């Protein structure tokens, strides 16, 4: 198995960051983990994107469907 020697302080700093990320402390909210907060933000962001995407689809559908009879196949 390969062992990588850490030579510089830069690598040690990265290792520190990894340790903090693993503990959920890199973007930590005060007094706790940010997972829940981050999860909330992510959910809201996904919801907003989803609403925007649906609205865009609906608007473009209306725009392109205007004046056409959608019940019959188009030639």
């Amino acid at each position, binding site marked *: 198995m390969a062992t990588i020697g850490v030579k510089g302080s830069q690598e040690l700093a990265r290792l*520190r*960051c990894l340790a903090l990320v693993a503990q959920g402390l890199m973007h*930590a909210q005060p007094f706790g983990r940010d997972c829940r907060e981050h999860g909330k933000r992510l959910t809201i962001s996904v919801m907003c994107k989803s609403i925007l995407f649906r609205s865009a689809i609906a608007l473009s559908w209306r725009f392109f469907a205007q004046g056409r009879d959608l019940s019959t196949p188009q030639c």
Partner: protein
Amino acid sequence: MTYQRRNAELRRAVKTLVNDKLAQGSLEQIKLTRGEVFIVKAGALEHPLPRLNNRMVILSPFDNSVIQRERLKVLFDYDYQIECYVPAARRQYGYFCLPLLYRDAFVGRMDCKAHRKDRRLKIKSLYFEQQGLDEDQIVKAFIDAIKGFCLFQECDSVFLQAVYPIRLGQGLCSALTLSIGDTP
């Protein structure tokens, strides 16, 4: 991973699994110059890391990031031990010191007590240990952190008893007075 787990079977199983993954190359060993070995996901050191946050975090003494004393010493150059189990005469920092994390470094510790009846937070001693960091930034981050901490502890005022290095005392006291709104 199996730190302080007494289940020998579990420890053996985890060791075997880790060795297998090391052999497969999905994990790799990182050896520090002082000889300590850490195991990380392969290529983890090459991945971009999250941006460092300028906020200070007041941690619990039982936080997972500080319970492994040796690892903490090696990685962060920070010697931390909760001293409520240490006889009073041998305590160095205080009964219930909380570690202070700023960016990617443990910059100090704070021994405090919340007096719930008076809604008053007493900081018995506050230590800033890291050299070479911008003290103004650290003080600012600490003030922000302590404001949130007071809310969390339902305290309206802060009393700062001792701070090390002493030169930070005056600035901290006036900043706390302005921020929390009471005379420290």
